[in-house]
Structure formats: C-alpha cells, structure tokens
C-alpha cells in the first residue's frame, strides 16, 4: 500500500501554486494562444490590416518542399549536436572523476566554454574556419583539403554542429561529473573485486546508474539544439548554403523578422510547438522506461 498524505482545504494549495500558474499563463499560454490566433491570418507587417485565411498558412507551409526538408535538417542537426555534446562530456567527466590531483582546476577550465554566448561562440568558430583568414582552414589547405563551408553543405553542417555543441560540452560535463560522484563506491569496488575491468564496470554498472542524468541531458540538449542554436546559425551560415543549415527555428526568424511574413512565421511556431510537445511525450513514454532511478 502506498502511503498518501492529504491536506484539508484548497485555498492554501491554490495560493501556493498560483505564482507558477501566473508565470505560465503570462509567459506561455498567452503568447502560445496569440501564435495560434495569428497563424490563421496573413497580416501586413505594420498591423494595419489582416486577411483571415483559415488553415491557409499551414497549407502554404506544407506545400513548400524546402519547409518539409527543414524537418529533416532539424532532426539531423539535433541528433548530431546532442551526440557531439554528450559523448565528449561523458568521456571528460569519467577522466576528471579519476583524477586525484588538480581535479578542481580541470573542472573549472572545462566549465569555461559554457559562459560564452552562442552568437559569440559562432563568431569564434567562424574566425577559425573562415575560408580566407581562418587558422584551421589554412592548415587544412596546407594538408591539401580545400575547406569551403560557404558552398559545401556538409562542411557547413559540420561547422554549425561543432560550434553549437562546443559550449554544451561544459554544461553536460558538469552534470555527468556530479552524477559520477554520486555512484556508490561500494558497488564499483565489489565489481572490481569480482574481476571486472574498468570499461566493463563502466558499461555494466556506472552507465545504468547515471541513466537518469543521461536522460535529463538528452531532453535538455535536444531542446537546446531546437531553440537556442539560433545565434550560432545566424552568425555562421545564415541558414545556407542553399538551405542546408536552415533549421525550423531559424526559418521562423527569417520569415518573420527578415521577410516580415508574420502569418507564416506564426504558423511555423505552432508547428514547432506541436513537434516539441510530441517529442517530449515520446521521450517520456518510451525512453524513460529504460531509465532506472
């Protein structure tokens, strides 16, 4: 039998959740409602007139082959960013966890990149890979590789992925490091006495034990790749070449704030809202079952 604690009355609980509800209403429900409402119109940029088009904006969007391609681009981009930011972070955390001397110094140094804003990170990476003055592209040129992310799709994608993931490695490192510290030493030692080698212990014991953290980071990183990488893409590729790095959220921006097409932009945010909602449901329904708390 599960024990349940119950409280009498409803005023106090309501009062306690009220601030949170208010914040959600003002910063989430109201703007989301506005976006849904706006997605049914084609307004002019100045808000002087607008035409009701029903689902016309959505029809227009899904009739556009480039918009459909943007889903694939977004998926590829998010998966790559998540992998590139999670795997090195875990590796670094494992190494830092085994350090005896100077652990704090390493830890601090590894956290630094997180303090760099995405747009600035974008510019830094752009400098290194600039086709004309970039240090890295110059060395690649010496090795006989002609780096040109301005025209090459894959290079452009690779560059924005690395630039987006770089700062996140720090963030993920911090969480993995804390999780590793929390793994009971006795379990690991018992396995060691049984003759399990390091990697065996890591995959069979440590990894399952830190799975809640991994799951949390997976969700957070996908959300990051979806919404917060905008600055990196804007500074490095502006969505090009062709539309190779135009992810959904970048298209919302460029249609709304460059093209002044607010109807289409609103419809895209609604689509984005649905996509993220679905993904979160899927993650919690299927992935969470494999997570052991």
């Amino acid at each position: 039998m599960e024990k349940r604690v119950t409280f009498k009355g409803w005023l106090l609980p309501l009062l306690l959740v009220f601030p949170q509800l208010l914040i959600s209403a003002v910063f989430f429900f109201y703007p989301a409602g506005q976006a849904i409402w706006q997605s049914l119109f084609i307004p002019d940029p100045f808000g002087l007139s607008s035409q009701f088009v029903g689902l016309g904006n959505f029809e227009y969007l899904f009739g556009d082959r480039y918009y459909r391609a943007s889903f694939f681009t977004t998926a590829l981009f998010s998966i790559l960013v998540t992998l590139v930011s999670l795997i090195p972070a875990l590796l670094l955390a494992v190494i830092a966890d085994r350090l005896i001397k100077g652990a704090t110094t390493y830890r601090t140094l590894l956290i630094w990149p997180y303090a760099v804003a995405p747009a600035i990170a974008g510019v830094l990476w752009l400098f290194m890979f600039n086709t004309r003055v970039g240090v890295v592209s110059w060395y690649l040129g010496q090795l006989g590789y002609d780096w040109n992310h301005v025209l090459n799709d894959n290079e452009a994608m690779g560059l924005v992925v690395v630039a987006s993931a770089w700062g996140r490695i720090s963030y993920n490192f911090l969480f993995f490091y804390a999780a590793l510290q929390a793994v009971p030493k006795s379990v690991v030692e018992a396995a060691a006495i049984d003759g399990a080698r390091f990697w065996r212990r890591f995959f069979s014991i440590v990894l399952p034990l830190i799975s809640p953290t991994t799951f949390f980071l997976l969700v957070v990183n996908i959300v990051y790749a979806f919404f917060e990488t905008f600055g990196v893409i804007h500074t490095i590729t502006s969505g090009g070449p062709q539309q190779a790095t135009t992810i959904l959220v970048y298209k919302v921006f460029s249609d709304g704030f460059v093209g002044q097409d607010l109807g289409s932009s609103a419809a895209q945010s609604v689509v984005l809202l649905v996509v993220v909602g679905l993904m979160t449901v899927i993650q919690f329904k299927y992935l969470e079952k494999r997570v052991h708390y």
Partner: protein
Amino acid sequence: MNFKIKPYALSTIAASVLLAPTAYAATEVQFWHAFTGRLGELVAEQVDTFNSSQTDYEIVAANKGNYSETLNAGIAAFRAKEQPHILMVFEVGTATMMGAKGAIKPVYEVMADAGAEFDAGAYIGSVKGYYTTTEGDMLSLPFNSSTPVLWVNKDALKEAGVDPDVDMSTWQQVGEVLDKVKAAGSDCPLTTAWQSWIHLENLSAYHDTPFATKDNGFAGLDTELAFNSELQVQHIQTMGDWAKEGKFMYAGRRNEGGANFRAGECALFTESSAGYAGISSEAEFEFEVRPLPYWEGAKGAPQNTIIGGASLWVMEGHEDEEYKGVAAFLNFLSTADIQSKWHQNTGYLPITLAAGKKTRLDGFYDENPGTDIAVIQMTAKEPTANSKGLRLGSFDQIRGIIDEELEAVWSGDKTAQVALDSAVERGNQLLRRFERANQ
C-alpha cells in the same frame, strides 16, 4: 543653390554665440538609421551641422542595427505607437513601406503640408525613380544610393601579363582576361559582392530586360518574376562555368568578397560604387573603377544600372510642428553642399543634379579618376520601364531565395536554367502572399 548656405552659416554663428549652452525647447525629431563605423560618423556630422544651424528643431539620430534590423525596429515601434519621425529603409523594403498606407507620410505631402520649398525635378531621375509613384510623386527621400561597378586590381593584371588598361566593357572581354589571369596561376580572377543585386537585378536593367512583369512591380502588386529569360540564364550559366573552372570565386551572400579583393587576392571584383571608401583606404595596390560590363550583342545594352542603398521614410502619427522639422531636415540633406560632401566621402551617388555638378566643379573627379563612373552609368540614358528600379514585396526574402539558388549553380548542383526557374517559382509564391496581405 549656394545662396542658401549663408543663412545657415549666419544662424550657426548666432546659435553658438547666443544660445549654445541652453537647450531651448526645440522640437525633437527622431531619426533612426542603419549606419555604423565611418558612415555612422558622417551621418552624425550631418545631424550636428543641422542642429547647430538653427534652434527650432533638434534631430535625435539613433542607430538601430543593420538595414533589416532598422526596418524591424521601425515596424515594432509603429505597432507600439512609438515610431520615429524618420526611418531609414533599404531599397528592397520599398514595396513594404509603400504598402503600409496609414503608417507612412509621403515626402511630397510632408513638404507640401510644411509649406517647404520642394522641387522633385532637382533630384537625379534614376535615383528618385526608385522611390517615386508612377504618377511622379516622391514617397521617400533617397539618402544613400550606389550602383555596381567593376573594380580592377591593376597590379594583379600586370602580374598575369595582361595589359592593365585592357578594354573590359563587355563580359566577352572580361572572359578573355579571366582566362589569362587563371592561366597565370591566380586563385581568384573574379569575385563579387551582392550577387542577386549585381548579377540579376542590375544585369536585367542594364540590358533593358524585365526582372519582373508589370514594369518590375511598379505597375501593380500582381507582378511576377521574370528573371529566368535567355539573357539571365546565359549570364548565370557563364558565371557557373567560370566558378567550375576556378575563374570566379564565390565568397558569400553579402560583401564578403570585398576582404579578398582589398587584400589583393582577386584581380576583378563586381561591387557597389560605395565600396570606394573601404578599397581606397585598405588596398595596397593600384586599383581602378570601370563601368559594369555588358554582353556584346544584347539588344539595348548598355542601358542604365539601378541603385541600391536606402531612403528616408517619414512615419505617420506625429504633430504638424514636428513634420515641419522633418521637412527642414530633409531639405537640408538635399542641399548641394551636404550632398557633394557625402558623395565624395563615401562613393555613394549624389541625389541631386546640383550636387553632381558641384563635385565636378570642385575638381573631385579629376583628382580621383573613376569616381564619376557610377554617376555616368546611372545617368547616361533615360531609364526605361525595365531600368527604373524594382518594386517587389517580400523582396528581402526573395533575394534570400535567389542567393540559395545561385549557390546551387556555383557549386555545380544545378544548371542556371533549373536554378533560375526554381527561384522564379519560389519567389512568385511570396509575391502572391504579399499581394494577399496588402489587398
């Protein structure tokens, strides 16, 4: 025109002597612009000169980011009912502003209401044409206008064994030069800035070929793009072939190629005449300005090129007294002194005939050969319906589409015909949406 300057000068002295420290209750006029760096300083100087020349009005200038960001700031401010009096909008935003009846106050109306002296005939036809209705009413005041020209690195040509004074009036001749420069081992015989503006929009006007139907959009919102005709396809295909053969190096969508040219890496560079300020200060080689090449044998070529840049729009919703200040400031900006100085400092075109004349009389063109090429190119012929300019809705986005499709040609993914057909089709969808939003 010169006699107008004296009262300004006198009142400047009077103002500085009598009223300098007291901030009298001058009427404030907000002016949002998109200039930073050297251009920002020059704008600030113009504003200071105006403010100290009289005491009735105080122009408050503010930078709001780049062109797109400034337009957005203006739109957002209008929605919040806090719009500035004067907003700088780049030329591709013209149709958006024209469509915003109720948000803008046409310049000719501002001038008439304020009782200010205003002669639309004083402005250069091909400059003002971009911002004028088909009835000839000027809607916004041209501020900075430039046109594309061919920049030549004479040292690079010499190095490649090409006569640096070789005739490059036509693209055929340019092609021959590129062959030689490439054969001499250059990595960058030709590069460009603003590919859509130069190699499609100006190409079309220069060859008297429509870029879009309905007089390039001037005659109606139901315009359709038409830049996939033979001329444009042939030009883009040639450029694509040059890219494949390493004779044309693509550097980016905006003016990234400028860095390569200024560093001396490229022999030829198609860029705005306003590139003058940067190139003259940075280039450590002998450079020259040439007219934009045209295709030999194309009917009507060379016509005139069209402008790029920005104009000043007056926003609706302010007091009459403030509009008088706006009118006074706009008239001040149009004076020959201010304009010729702007023209000489920046490489932007003078907006009035008087300013062009003054620059010539000052001897500036003799001292800086080639700086008048852009003016000549713009004014040599009376503009036709195909070379008056472009007035297309959502044009910033359409340029984005064109950039994408051109990149596909430069990388060899698409032929020019396929890419331009696709750009026309995608762009037309945006034009139809704009038409619906502005019915």
